[in-house]
């Protein structure tokens, strides 16, 4: 079997994910003020990063699809949105699990949380459209438009929600412009898990894209067969 990009992502994931887990659970020191729950952070942040990346890719692919009308862009947009949605869900769940012991509540309508939740809702709508609408060009184009508008909407949501207080910790970039991780091992752990989740999500994206490409190919073949049969019927 020839080596493929997907296999490379899978291999990178196989190495990096255990490494990241080892660093999270064994290597990194426990943070002083939050205790052990703080270790959720090392996967929470990469998940958020990957979710945003997925949604962004989905919007870009949507624009390309509208412009070039090639099926492959539609497939890329769909796959990216779905993987983005998976990690966005994980961000919300891990965030809640961190918030319960630290803030004493699962959920609060804080600006950062609200923004993320609305993002989740936007793409929930997108995926529902994909699932409920028919599988045709029109729905694909509408999905592309939704992805594009949704991405443009994000900065606006961020601005409008800024009007509220935020209690979400700003760890990576604090007010003074530095990162808030006092021990260098924490930064190393974050970097490794960032790579691990990126590789994992790239692999998932690649897998999903493969099923979508297979589906498109299947559709093409069915079309060819239908053409053949129609010609057979039409001939005397």
């Amino acid at each position: 079997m020839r080596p493929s990009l997907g296999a490379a992502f899978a291999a990178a994931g196989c190495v990096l994910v255990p490494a990241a887990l080892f660093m999270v659970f064994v290597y990194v020191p426990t943070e002083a003020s939050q205790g052990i729950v703080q270790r959720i952070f090392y996967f929470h942040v990469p998940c958020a990063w990957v979710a945003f990346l997925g949604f962004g890719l989905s919007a870009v692919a949507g624009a390309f699809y509208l412009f070039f009308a090639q099926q492959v862009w539609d497939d890329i947009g769909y796959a990216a949105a779905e993987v983005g949605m998976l990690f966005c869900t994980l961000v919300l769940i891990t965030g809640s699990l961190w918030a319960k012991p630290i803030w004493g509540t699962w959920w609060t309508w804080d600006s950062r949380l609200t923004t993320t939740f609305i993002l989740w809702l936007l793409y929930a709508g997108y995926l529902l459209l994909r699932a409920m609408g028919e599988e045709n060009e029109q729905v694909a184009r509408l999905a592309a438009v939704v992805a594009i508008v949704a991405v443009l909407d994000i900065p606006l949501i961020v601005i409008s929600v800024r009007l509220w207080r935020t209690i979400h910790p700003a760890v990576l970039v604090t007010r003074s412009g530095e990162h808030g991780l006092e021990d260098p091992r924490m930064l190393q752990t974050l970097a490794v898990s960032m790579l691990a989740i990126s590789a994992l999500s790239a692999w998932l994206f690649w897998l999903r894209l493969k099923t979508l490409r297979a589906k498109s190919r299947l559709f093409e073949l069915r079309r060819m067969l239908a053409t053949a049969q129609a010609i057979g019927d039409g001939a005397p």
Partner: protein
Amino acid sequence: MLTGFCALLHKDLTLERRGGRVVIELCVLSLLVLVVLVVAYGPETGGRPESAAGALWVALILSGLPGASLAVAAEHENDCLTGLRLSPLEPATIYAAKVAAVALSMAVSQAATLLLLVLFFNLQFDLNLLRLIPILLLGTLGLCALSTLLGTITSRLRAGEMLLALLTAPLYVPELIAGVKASAAVLSGASLAAVVLPLKILAACDLLFVVCGYLLFEYLAG
């Protein structure tokens, strides 16, 4: 281009005058939403300006979505949209005229809603209410721009109206936040300074949605 826009708008207004159902549907839905919210709030919470502002915007969005899909669906009735696409008009002109028509019908229902709001929530009839008008107009424009754009396709689908609501409502959230904030400030008699930022957000969203619609409509009309 302007003649085309005027012709389309004139056509929509004639149709609406002649037994169109959009304005009536919008008014009835707004009325229902207001009544439901007044009952649900109860006398205590219902007395606060924030509640009134929230009710106003819930009425706006809940009546606006079906209203817009009704207006867009009218264009599919006898394949009229195809007729428009065959005409020399640019898709963007068709979009602009449709948004204007939907926004006009919503503005009418909004006037009625405002009147009912004052009655139901025991507000003061004074000039202060006039300050709500620009806020509401901005909010209406944004909602119309979004729902007309997305409604063009969803109104042809099976679960179209639900999908339209699912797609539009989250996109509309920034306007909703800003609009409720601004309306609450106005109703509680706060100074103008409190309204400036929400108004800016509303205007920015409107601009974004209108530009998106203007650029993307031609891909959806096809």
